[in-house]
């Protein structure tokens, strides 16, 4: 027994020592910014720059949908993170729920860098709770080598005749994008917001779910990655994720289009959770992102458009494609999702839950 015991003790000690010899995540006493953002949405080099600038440590945690972020905040994460990145239509909801706090504009002098059309938006009058981060569109991503010349329409997902065999997905998360897509396909327009339209869209989604080649509800970036891995052949993705996969050569078989029935345009914003442990650092981070140079670096990394006017001159020329910068014709198709709160939100959630089951 003694041999075994000393062996185990030795192994245990070695493991513990090994554990602490590995790079330490956070030294005690050092201020920490807990960043809660979308996967792959910020250049790790920028995080390093910010760490140097603020003399703090950044701990980044990722999510893939607004609803995932909201559910986490609800379950206590509103006292764990200092910055979150909700989409524009989610801001009002988080405010009504008491999950984010007003921003101190004095601490964000770089606010002046924002293009005027991104200041004082309808989803957050007076920029009281949020600052724009990036903006982009949601369309359909598909595998060009499998689905040849698909119609630029939501029918690729919703019409069994257009795609009878290839596995496809619908977007998960809050459901507003997916219900919007179904509404657009049914002719109600992408930004539908009446009960009758939602119900019709939910019925369509229920029917779609029953199809053999429906592969599940998958969020935007995961769907892009699954297209790259060829796990399925079509689904709803964000434009910048596709552009980024072109840039590093990993997504050369992925095609992207904005369906002609209408598609989503969104602005992602930065906000500070209601009980953030370190809101001062949060403000410092928001101001850092709105800096002209950093704003350009951000877009050059994640291939999304910037709301930062001062950053424009420093943008990579590859971002000038129609994919990243929609044309005037595309803009006619694009709609913002309606912000929901109160009884209407409850109704929508009930419909979405029913549609998904």
């Amino acid at each position: 027994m003694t041999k075994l015991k000393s062996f185990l003790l030795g192994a245990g000690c070695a493991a513990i020592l090994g554990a602490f010899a590995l790079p330490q995540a956070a030294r005690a006493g050092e201020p920490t910014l807990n960043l809660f953002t979308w996967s792959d949405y910020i250049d790790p080099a920028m995080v390093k720059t910010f760490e140097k600038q603020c003399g703090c440590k950044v701990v980044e945690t990722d999510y893939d949908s607004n609803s995932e972020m909201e559910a986490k905040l609800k379950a206590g994460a509103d006292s764990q993170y200092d910055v979150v990145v909700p989409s524009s239509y989610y801001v009002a909801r988080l405010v009504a729920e008491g999950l984010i706090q007003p921003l101190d504009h004095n601490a964000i002098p770089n606010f002046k860098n924002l293009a005027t059309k991104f200041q004082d938006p309808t989803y957050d009058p007076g920029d009281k709770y949020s600052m724009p981060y990036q903006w982009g569109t949601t369309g359909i991503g598909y595998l060009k080598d499998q689905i040849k010349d698909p119609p630029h329409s939501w029918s690729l997902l919703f019409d069994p005749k257009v795609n009878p065999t290839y596995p496809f997905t619908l977007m998960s998360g809050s459901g507003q994008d997916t219900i919007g897509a179904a509404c657009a396909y049914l002719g109600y327009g992408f930004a539908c917001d009446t009960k009758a339209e939602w119900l019709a869209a939910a019925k369509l989604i229920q029917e779609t779910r029953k199809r053999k080649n429906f592969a599940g509800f998958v969020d935007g970036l995961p769907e892009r990655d699954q297209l790259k891995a060829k796990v399925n052949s079509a689904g709803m993705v964000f434009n910048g994720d596709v552009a980024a996969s072109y840039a590093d050569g990993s997504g050369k078989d992925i095609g992207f289009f904005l369906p002609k029935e209408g598609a989503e345009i969104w602005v992602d914003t930065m906000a500070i959770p209601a009980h953030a442990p370190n809101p001062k650092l949060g403000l410092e981070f928001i101001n850092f992102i709105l800096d002209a140079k950093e704003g350009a670096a951000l877009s050059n990394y994640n291939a999304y458009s910037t709301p930062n006017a001062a950053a424009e001159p420093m943008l990579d020329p590859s971002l000038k494609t129609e994919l990243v910068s929609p044309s005037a014709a595309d803009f006619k198709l694009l709609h913002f999702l309606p912000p929901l709160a109160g009884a209407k939100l409850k109704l929508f959630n009930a419909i979405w839950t029913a549609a998904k089951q």
Partner: protein
Amino acid sequence: MSTMVQSEARSRAWRLWLTSGPGLFWIILFLLLPSGIMLGIAFFTNSDFGSPVLPLSLSSFSQVAGFGILGWTSANFTVLIRSLLQAGIATTMTILLAYPLVFFIVSRPANLRPVLLLFAIVPSWTNQVVRTYAWMQLLNPFAPVSHLAQSLGLIPPHLGLMPGNFAVFIGLTYNYLPYMVVPLYAAVEKLDWTLVEAGRDLYASGPKLFFNAVFPQTVPGLLSGIILVGIPAFGDYVVPQLLGGDKAMMLGSLIASQFTFSPDWPYGAALTIIMLVFTCIGLVVFRRLTQRLGGGEGAML
């Protein structure tokens, strides 16, 4: 005299709580209390944002019963039946695989048996997420197995063997096979072979001999195995989530999504009650069976 017995009993009880107390208190504080709170949430009303609010109501249970905004649907019922079926089928499969395996191990020389048993268990020591991921790699639409199934016409072209019910079945069987092997091995190793010899003289033929002389002796191990496989398989989260997705949703994923995606805590809590009720029914039934069939569980508390 009686006071001495009494004070002796009291001092034993006192020592019992002194030694076992901290651990028991820990479990009460960090598991029984939290799950009590969780179950209580089921009786609250859902707020606009999915939080539990007053007044108390049973509306979450009508949601569980299938009454939603689109009228009544059988969706929840289907999920429950699927969870029960998947657990049942996976348990049956582990039994079918574990019996020959265990008898094979026992039929080998005594010094080889531990290593053969060890190699049956080792895969279960890797993390469940990694094990399930391995099957995702094998059942993908572009995996050779899927191509074979496509060309045999078992699945439509371009699709994979995952996500879906089949993948979940495979994943559950793979994950829980060792939990069937271990108790069965314990039972078979203690097998009284003189009974088998006697049976051989009486019945002679193979299957008859097995079911009359061998099988009854393995029943206690089999029942432990069914509890160890069936109950966790019914409540599993990782396997149906990764291998089934939305196509083969089981109760675990349905509950989790009420807390991690579109929040509706009272509904999620009510679903949890359903899961616990079925878990308890399964436990009680198989415990009763074990007791009736005289399964001596050596060191049960």
